[in-house]
């Protein structure tokens, strides 16, 4: 397979210069614009005229893939019905806390429950298949968390038959609704309120 080296010359079309230009291969930090994944020390082709990155050689693709996979391991993304996103807002209101800060804490709390409580994980699986978990998935929800935590949560979920991140999140949110808004699990609601209070909640959930 052909390999380019730093300093090798080539050509490319530079979109900034809007023309064909000569290029030189250099090692640069590169950011994938859509995901904002940063890839350090990537061999790229740099425009001789404007100095911008204009092309990526074939040999750099594995580094891009690795960086994206590393980011995927550190993040959980799913699309959920809007009424389940409403649950997050209702819980934030119940705990008198800002939803933007509360949302990740809520999800991390329940992922921890899935990891540590096998019967709860089974309940999440059942709730993911419930009518309340159904609906057109309009809302995108994402969570950054330590890779080992997400890995453990996914392992625990798979072990009870929850096959997708979307099902995991749907089941968690239905469980949260039952635990807090319906007062089904006061002990868990109280522990969740502690997590919410860490974000400046004014009062604990009423049980």
């Amino acid at each position, binding site marked *: *397979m*052909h*390999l380019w080296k730093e300093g090798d010359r*080539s*050509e*490319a*079309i530079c*979109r900034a210069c*809007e*023309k*064909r230009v000569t290029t030189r291969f250099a090692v640069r930090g590169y950011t*994938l*614009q*859509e*995901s904002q994944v940063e890839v350090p020390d990537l061999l*790229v*082709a740099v425009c001789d005229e404007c100095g*911008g*990155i*204009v*092309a*990526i*050689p*074939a*040999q750099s*693709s*594995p580094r*891009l*893939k690795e960086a*994206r996979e590393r980011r995927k391991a550190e993040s959980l993304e799913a699309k959920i019905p809007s009424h389940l996103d409403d649950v997050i807002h209702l819980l934030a209101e119940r705990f008198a806390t800002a939803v933007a800060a509360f949302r990740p804490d809520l999800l991390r709390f329940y992922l921890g429950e899935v990891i540590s409580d096998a019967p709860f994980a089974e309940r999440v699986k059942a709730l993911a298949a419930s009518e309340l978990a159904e609906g057109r998935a309009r809302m995108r929800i994402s969570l950054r968390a330590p890779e080992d935590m997400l890995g453990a949560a996914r392992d625990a979920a798979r072990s009870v038959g929850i096959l997708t991140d979307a099902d995991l999140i749907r089941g968690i949110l239905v469980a949260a609704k039952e635990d807090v808004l319906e007062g089904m699990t006061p002990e868990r609601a109280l522990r969740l309120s502690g997590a919410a209070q860490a974000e400046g909640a004014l009062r604990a959930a009423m049980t």
Partner: protein
Amino acid sequence: MGFTAARSLLIDALLSGRFQHEERRDLERKNLLAVGDVSAEFVIGLLKACRGNQYKASPYHFDARILCHEFKPVSAGQAWYVKAYFLSSDAVFISVHR
């Protein structure tokens, strides 16, 4: 350069590693080969599956002397889009996506 020649040269480039990817803001969505979502071998398969009536060439808008080669093969029931051009001895991919 016609369909057969363009396809043959592109496959050669994929086999030899003599290809680059044009930088674009939506690289992750529009060039799955660049970000490793598909392999060079997979794209070779797409090109081999392409029929002549699924190919067209047109001048590149930044430099009309450069021909952009567009392939629209169907593989496993999915329509794909591959767009590339040649500069010197190297191929440059603009798009590889469904």
